[in-house]
């Protein structure tokens, strides 16, 4: 084998290794941004336009401004966890099949759920032992959840974010 070929192969291999590294980083990076964008693009809960009465122009504004797109855990053991909201309800509790499984001594197995209705998310207590609080008020029936207002379950706090 000519010396030149071997030298080219040698350095080519090293360069390929780094190309691989940067490609992986690229995939990871795209992955991160895809996550952020999907938070904006996942549509608000169903019938967001129907409730405003002007289905043509309004929905876009509602989506940008006030609709909740993420559920963020702000305090407790799962702090930092984000769930991108779609149109499915979110169940919260210690039960393994909950959407958000919280291991909190003050939480019940099926503690509460968040349900989208007419463009608004409602929190509903599912008969928990220690109760669910929206900010300071105890949740008794389905209660609309404004953006940025903490829902407290035991030691855990959750917030809806745009």
């Amino acid at each position, binding site marked *: *084998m000519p010396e030149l070929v071997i030298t080219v192969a040698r350095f*080519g*291999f*090293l360069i*390929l290794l780094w190309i691989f590294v940067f490609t992986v980083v690229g995939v990871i990076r795209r992955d991160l941004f895809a996550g952020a964008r999907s938070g904006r693009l996942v*549509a608000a809960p*169903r019938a967001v336009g129907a409730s405003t009465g002007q289905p043509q122009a309004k929905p876009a504004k509602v989506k940008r401004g006030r609709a909740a797109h993420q559920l963020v855990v702000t305090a407790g053991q799962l702090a930092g966890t984000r769930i991108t909201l779609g149109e499915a309800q*979110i169940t919260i509790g210690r039960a393994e099949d909950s959407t958000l499984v919280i291991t909190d001594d003050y939480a019940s197995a099926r503690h509460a759920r968040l349900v989208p209705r007419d463009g608004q998310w409602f929190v509903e207590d599912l008969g928990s032992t220690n109760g669910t609080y929206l900010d300071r008020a105890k949740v008794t029936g389905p209660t609309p959840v404004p953006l940025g207002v903490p829902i407290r379950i035991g030691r855990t706090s959750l917030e809806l974010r745009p």
Partner: protein
Amino acid sequence: MTAAAAPAASPATTGEQPGVRLARSRRNAELSLLLLALVIVAAYGATVEATVLDTVTPDFWVPTAVLAAVFLALHVVIRFLAPFADPALLPAVALLNGIGVGFLRRLDLARAAPEERETLAIFAGNGGRQFAWTLASVVLAAALLALMRDHRSVSRYAYTLGLAGIVLVMIPAVLPAKYSEIYGAKLWIRIGGFSIQPGEFAKLALLVFFAYYLVRKREVLSLASHRVLGIDFPRGRDLGPVLAVWVLSVLVLVFEKDLGTSLLYFGMFVVTLYIATERVSWLLIGLILFFGGAYLAYVLGGVIGGPFANFHLRAEIWLDPFADPYEDGYQLVQGLLALGSGGLFGAGPGGGQPLEIPEVQNDFIFAGIGEEIGLFGLSALLVVYLLIVERGLRAALAVRDSFGKLLAGGLAFTLGLQVFVIVGGISKLIPLTGQTTPFLSAGGSSLMANWLLIAVLLRVSDGARRPVTGVGGSAARPGGGPPEQLHGAPTEVIRP
């Protein structure tokens, strides 16, 4: 109005399609990364042959093709069983494993007599055995993915696994040396010409136990505590079982003279505690205990010898490997010389003298590879490890249950710590303790255990990245409404 609302609803659902597509599985990205990794492995094999044999044999592609078949099969399995798993994990691991196999074959070539080299069978020697192990490991990883459809289901067997972990660690200590000792370390089970290292698997089992136990007790651990010297110590009875497991495994390992693994278990334990309780004091306590213990062992080994003599000797070698370069320090010195002669860009794959380093196929594989690909290539490999660990921690951050967080965080950290311990040992940053380099070193137990670890990480990351579908899995369904209401039926029916 209702008639108008009905058509308005269907554009709304189609409008959500981008959202659904954005929560995509990224399996195609995984496939293309995997193909790139395989091209690199093939290039490595060809360069090795060109350098060692001075010609590229017509069937140089066969080893890569076999690996490609194995890894692509796993990729297909992931497509079906864990469609939302992290796309970077499999290709990164496949690259490391492929280069490991390639380097072991390169060692076989160097060992063979020059006239036999060109006809050296592909599935012979260390390289061939590593092939078989890779195949077995990937099959095991796929089986684990198939058996464990949800990472939370493992927590049911946590106590069984904890017990199994201890038993696995203890077997080599109890067995007579004839069946368990290789190079003075009693950590093997040898049956005939076949040996397995149960400690590698125990690592996984114990971590599941730690994660499960700490999730259940974390509140008590971080709240019911005594405050001593400004640091919160949990009550003994809460910590008892975990401490017992840990002390037992570490004692056994000290008895088995395997410092690397006991360091690994200690680090794993401290970090899971830290993740569970979010208290930095655990890291401080762990570091102080570790450095204190290591220094004490060093001093004791110098004064009374006995069980600590081994560690004392290793620390002495670390402090000055050139004091006795032909006897005690021989291995480390050869490794350092290899890294040094590799320089920035290395001697090229196949161009080094890896056989000068004792045990180059196991502990010192990083030095052997380093001589040939240089700092430039080694740092690429280290970054690949870093990316694997990062993806593991990422999965831990994103997953929505505490057990998964602890499991993935602990596993990813353990993998990173193992790489640190062995690479740090070879490059004389820390005293050398025998450890396998994950995915590179020859040896089936290590390869299998690490592939199982990756399978668990894949499963957790699948759970973390799977789009939230509520309980009814309604994202997949066109009209998500009815299943939700069915699920919530009890409350909905009783309230009105």
